């Protein structure tokens, strides 16, 4: 159980820093297409800052591999967050937009999978599984990004918050408090994002928010399933929760009030996320000792 001091460092401080930076990015309500696009990508800065602060509080100073240090898959998280940030910053510049956005996200998804299995790929070359993992992450990234562009405001951050919180609870039940806490930091940053989105409904999670969130989620899921004890069906349910806003589209929720829209999206995402927690609980023994 983390102490109050640890909780402050990996939840409250990242949330505050992320919230302040997001508010700065979305300060003006002016909504020119170019300005809005740049903001979407720049918000990656807020999430990356929050994640780095949280990582430092939970794991320590990020390290790079060296002759005397082989990195664990989770040690790559801050560097992958940095990669997602760089990709977002490049896309915020007009020159960066010459390369299609999907190509950038495909690159980060491939990096997430490759670095999670670095040093282990040669001994166990399950290329099909690795390709499927990267492709699934890429599909979820594109789907969430498209949904965020369709539904600006707090709806998509709320869905992401539900999925990330579900991931955090499911992983803590699967013998990894560290992965759970890192997901908790992301949930705290998304909480700040929801508050800013309530203040400025022009905020769109598309771009930087989705980039950092999907990168962190990808690292958490791979680590929890392959190196801790998260049951694969629980991870699949959490992924399914991420695409539930598309089901809400069947009811043409664009025409609904913002509050109703957010509530329905959250509810739809919460069902598979809660099922994932139940599966994790049933498939792993109790964590207490």
């Amino acid at each position, binding site marked *: 159980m983390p102490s109050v001091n640890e909780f402050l460092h990996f939840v409250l401080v990242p949330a505050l820093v992320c919230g302040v930076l997001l508010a700065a990015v979305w300060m003006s309500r002016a909504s020119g297409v170019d300005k809005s696009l740049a903001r979407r990508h720049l918000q990656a800065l807020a999430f990356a800052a929050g994640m780095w602060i949280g990582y430092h509080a939970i794991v320590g100073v990020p390290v790079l591999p060296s002759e005397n240090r082989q990195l*664990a898959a989770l040690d790559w998280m801050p560097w992958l967050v940095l990669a997602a940030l760089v990709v977002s910053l490049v896309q915020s510049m007009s020159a960066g937009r010459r390369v299609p956005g999907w190509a950038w996200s495909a690159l980060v998804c491939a990096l997430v999978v490759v670095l999670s299995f670095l040093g282990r790929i040669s001994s166990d070359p399950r290329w099909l599984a690795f390709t499927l993992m990267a492709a699934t992450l890429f599909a979820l990234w594109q789907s969430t990004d498209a949904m965020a562009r369709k539904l600006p405001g707090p709806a998509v951050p709320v869905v992401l918050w539900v999925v990330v919180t579900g991931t955090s609870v499911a992983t803590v039940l699967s013998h990894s408090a560290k992965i759970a806490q890192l997901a908790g930091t992301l949930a705290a940053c998304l909480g700040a994002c929801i508050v800013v989105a309530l203040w400025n409904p022009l905020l769109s999670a598309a771009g930087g928010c989705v980039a950092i969130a999907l990168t962190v989620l990808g690292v958490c899921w791979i680590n929890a399933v392959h190196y801790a004890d998260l049951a694969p069906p629980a991870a699949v349910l959490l992924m399914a929760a991420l695409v539930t806003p598309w089901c809400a589209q069947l009811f043409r929720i664009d025409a609904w009030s913002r509050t109703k829209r957010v509530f329905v999206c959250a509810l739809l995402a919460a069902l598979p996320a809660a099922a994932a927690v139940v599966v994790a609980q049933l498939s792993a*023994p109790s964590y207490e000792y």
Partner: protein
Amino acid sequence: MKALCSVLTLVACASVALGFALRAPPVLTAAQPTPAAAITYDIDGGHSSLLFRAKHLNVSYVYGRFNEFSGQFTFDSAKPENSKVEVEITIESVDSGVDKRDAHLRSPDFFDAKQFPTATFKSKSVRKTKDGHFEVTGDFTLHGVTKPITIDVESVGTVKDERAGEIAGFHGTFTLKRSEFGVSYGPTALGEDILVIVSVEGTRNDEGGGKK
């Protein structure tokens, strides 16, 4: 008839004596150090222990052990600097006496057994500090991190066992800072300094070369 009885009595006595002889404990004699000769021993897992001690909540010490480890050590009593040791520890065998805690210790929060299934120690130098005491310096790899450590080692003794052969035993301790090995989870619940206690018994390996 008398002669037959005598023969039978003799045979019976001889059988009893032979029986006792077969059941008698092995004769142990203190081994004389072989002058200027390095002897290589295989670690006998059944008579060796690898324990660790961590401070819990700053109020008590929790002990654990690794049940599986193997390796070899070479001891040269005349020239201790020629001695060396190599040990490989199976992380999955961690045993703190509580199954659920062991599962947590194997997880990415601590030893991350799936990614780093073994820890190793390879000596680089051995120095005699006083009679029967040595300082063994070498590279310890745990959780993917390799760092030099120094172990204070005491030679417990050597013996010749008629059945097992020549046996030598050593006992050593060292303290490591777990965060330096990337095992930094739960700094408020668990102490930073981990005391490691190594007690090994080795059987002479006449091949003197690689592992058996």
